[in-house]
C-alpha cells in the first residue's frame, strides 16, 4: 500500500501529466509508474524541481527487453534523499526504433548509464553528447543483451557444447 507521500506524488503527477500514466503499482514497497514515452523528460524535470517531490538523485537507469511485446523498456529509478522516498519510472519503446531524449541535461550521472543502455540494447538517446559503445568492443555490430543473441561466443572451438547440454 502506498504511503501518504507516495499518494501525494501520484496526485501531483496526475494533475499535470495524468494522460501519460499507464499504470501505477507498488511491488515490494517501491512505487512504480509505467508511462508513455513522449514526455518522460518533462516528468522527471517536474519531479526534480517541485518542492514537494525533490527527486534529485538518480539511482540507476537500465534497459529491459520484452521479446513477446517487441518492446524495449527503459527504467529510471530516482531517489528523494531528504524524505527518503524512491520511485521507479518505466517507459516502453518499440523495438524497430527505440529512441528517447537524453537525461544528461538534468543528471550528469545519466551520461554513462545511457551509453551502457545503448551498448546493450540499442536505445538511441537523442541529444546525448557522446553516444557510443562503452563496455563492448567499438566495432561490435549487434546489441548483445537482447534476448535473441546467445551468451556464448559461437566461434569458439575449445568448448564442446554437447557436453554442457547446450
Amino acid at each position, binding site marked *: 500500500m502506498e504511503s501518504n507521500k507516495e499518494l501525494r506524488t501520484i496526485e501531483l503527477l496526475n494533475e499535470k501529466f495524468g494522460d501519460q500514466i499507464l499504470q501505477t503499482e507498488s511491488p515490494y514497497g517501491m512505487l512504480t509508474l509505467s508511462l508513455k514515452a513522449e514526455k518522460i523528460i518533462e516528468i522527471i524535470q517536474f519531479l526534480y524541481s517541485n518542492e514537494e517531490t525533490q527527486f534529485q538523485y538518480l539511482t540507476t537507469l537500465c534497459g529491459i527487453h520484452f521479446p513477446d511485446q517487441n518492446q524495449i523498456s527503459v527504467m529510471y529509478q530516482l531517489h528523494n534523499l531528504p524524505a527518503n522516498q524512491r520511485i521507479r519510472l518505466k517507459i516502453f519503446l518499440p523495438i524497430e526504433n527505440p529512441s528517447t531524449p537524453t537525461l544528461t541535461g538534468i543528471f550528469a550521472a545519466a551520461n*554513462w548509464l545511457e551509453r551502457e543502455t545503448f551498448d546493450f540494447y540499442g536505445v538511441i538517446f537523442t541529444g546525448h553528447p557522446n553516444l557510443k559503445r562503452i563496455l563492448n568492443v567499438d566495432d561490435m555490430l549487434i546489441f548483445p543483451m537482447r534476448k535473441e543473441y546467445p551468451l556464448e561466443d559461437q566461434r569458439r572451438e575449445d568448448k564442446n557444447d554437447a557436453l554442457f547440454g547446450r
Partner: protein
Amino acid sequence: MQDINTISSKIQEEEKQYSYLNLGPTHPATHGIFQNVLKMDGEVIIDAEPTIGYIHRAFEKLAERRPFYQITPITDRMNYCSSPINNIGWHMTVEKLIGAEIPKRVQYLRVIIMELARITDHLVCNAVIGVDTGALTGFVYLFQQREDVYEIYEEICGARLTTNLGRIGGFERDFTPKAWAKINKFITEFPAVLKEFEKLLSRNRIFMDRTINVGGITAERALNYSFSGPNLRAAGVDYDVRVMNPYSSYEDFDFTIPLGTNGDVYDRFMVRQEEMWQSLSIIKQAIAKLPEGPFHATVPDFYLPPKEDVYNNMEALIYHFKIVMGETDVPKGEVYHTVEGGNGELGFYLISDGGRTPFRLHLRRPCFIYYQAYPEMIKGSMLSDAILTMSSMNVIAGELDA
C-alpha cells in the same frame, strides 16, 4: 594599434600545441584496467577521456542463464576486495523476492561479516593511497591484516578472496569455535596496527601537502553525478544506505557516519579511516548482543536440506533434487534491493518471470557511476595529482565493467 608584446603572446598562444598522454590500460599506478587519454599543457591536465570495458565479462547476460544460487559466484567478482558484501546483498535480494523471514542470529552474523569485508576494502584503498604517494611500508603492514581476515573467511566458507559466502536464507553452518577465536583475535590485534598506520600518514606533513585540496568535488556536483559511499560522504553529504534504508538489523547498532568537508583526497582517506574504526565498533556490538537461534531461515525451496534428511525423508530428497537441478519455483515480480558496499550504494534490480533464471538482473554498480566524474575532478591539476585522485576514488575494475 597593438603593441609588440600582445602580438607576440598571441602568436605563442596559437602555436602552442597540447600533448596527449595515454595513461594506458596497463599502468602500474592505475590499479585496474581502464584507460585515460589526457590532453596536457605541459604538466597541467586540460581534459581527459576515459575508456573502460577492458574487463567486461557480461555479468548481466550471464545471470539470465543461471539459477539464483549460481549467480552468487559471479556477484563475488564485482567488487572483489569485499566480496561477502556482494554475496549477502544478492541473497537478500532473492529473500526479498520470495518473502523469506530471516532469523535475528543470521542478521547479526551477516552484519559481522559485512563489516569485516568493509574493513578489508578500506584497507586496500588506504594502503594504495599510501603507495601512490610513495609510502610503501603501510601497504605491507595492512596486507598482513588482510591475511588475518582471509583466515576468518576460510573458517566460515572455505575461500579466501572470492568467497561465495552464505546461502539464500542464512549460512551453511554456524560459526565454529575456531572461527570465533580468530574473530576475537582479529579485533584485539587490529586496532594497534590501524593506529600505527594512521599515525604514519594522517598528520604527516608530506602526505597532507600532497592530498589536501587535490581532486576535490563539491557536494552539489557529487549528488548530480550520483556519487555514493565514502566518496560522497567526504564531500559532506551524509547518505549511507545502512542508515537510510536499514537492512539486516543495522538499526540495532549504534554507529556514527564520518563526513568530510571539501571532498578532496585527504577527506576521502580520513573518512575511510574513520569508517574502519566504526566498523570495528559495530562488530564488537554485534558479538556482545548476538542472540541464540537457527543459523538459517526456513526456505526449503532454496536451502539445501541436511544430508540425513535427504537419505531418509522423501520430501527432503525432492527438495534436494529440485534445488541442485535449479528447478525451484520462484514468484514473479520485480524487486530492487540495495546494500552499502565498500564503494557506496550497491543495488540489485531483479525481474523474475517465474522461471528458473532471472528475466533481467541489473546491477547498480557504484564505481561505474561515480567514475564518470573523473575528468571533471582532474581538470586543471597536475599529472601526479590525477594519479592520486584516481586511487583515492577506489575504482575497482571488476565493478566498473561487470
